[in-house]
């Protein structure tokens, strides 16, 4: 059964990936650290950005890549709700906890090899285990 397109999957460590991107930014690209967006104002021909440190900036196109608690997404959705006359309190604008918790633990592979030399995780790249009340994922 075919489930996805070309290219396969590639794995990266987040920090290495970010470092590689930063190292290859073109001269037209500028990074600004310590800038937490608090709000934006959509004008006729530009978007005004307000940052927590007091800085105000302008842009023509705003791309929000600001994570699960995205300020951009939240404001966009609230503005759209207001414009459409929808009661924003009933919309799922803010992130809601699903009630599921996830735990993460690391075991050094040489310790696992010593104690459980035949453990499946050592030979199967990624294993997803299902049971009635909890699921787990193992990888090396």
């Amino acid at each position, binding site marked *: 059964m075919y489930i996805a397109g070309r290219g*396969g999957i590639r794995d990266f460590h987040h920090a290495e990936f970010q470092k590689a991107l930063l190292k290859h930014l073109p001269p037209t690209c500028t990074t600004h650290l310590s800038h937490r967006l608090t709000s934006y104002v959509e004008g006729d021909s530009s978007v005004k950005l307000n940052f927590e440190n007091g800085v105000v900036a302008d842009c023509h196109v705003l791309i929000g890549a600001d994570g699960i608690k995205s300020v951009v997404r939240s404001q966009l959705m609230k503005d759209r709700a207001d414009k459409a006359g929808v009661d924003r309190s009933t919309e799922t604008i803010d992130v809601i906890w699903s009630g599921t918790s996830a735990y993460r633990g690391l075991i050094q592979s040489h310790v696992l090899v010593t104690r459980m030399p035949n453990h499946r995780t050592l030979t199967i790249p990624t294993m997803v285990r299902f049971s009635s009340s909890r699921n787990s994922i193992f990888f090396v």
Partner: protein
Amino acid sequence: MGARDDIDVNIYEQAAHFAEIGAGISMLPRAWDILKKLGLDAVLEEVATNSPSDRPGTFAIHRLVLCLCSQANIPILDLIFQFRKSDQSEGFAFTEVDTKGKALYLSLYLRAN
């Protein structure tokens, strides 16, 4: 990147510095295609912790998949995911996801015994 020098890009980051933290990223083909178009594929291949072709585990592919591959003239695939039922004393794998180079496949896994 930088093919268009008439577009200025500003990246705003709330943190005071780019930190050395974070977990793993698994990138699917669509995102990889975009990075390729930006000319970053060679750079990123260097820091990738795998490439689809160097996966171990062809040994773990079920006979059925090998049989289907030979019939359809598809190259032998590498295992990337195995799904396993584990809430019983003897668990068993019921599905595997395999990939190689240009495609990602989901194969139904039949219990060996």
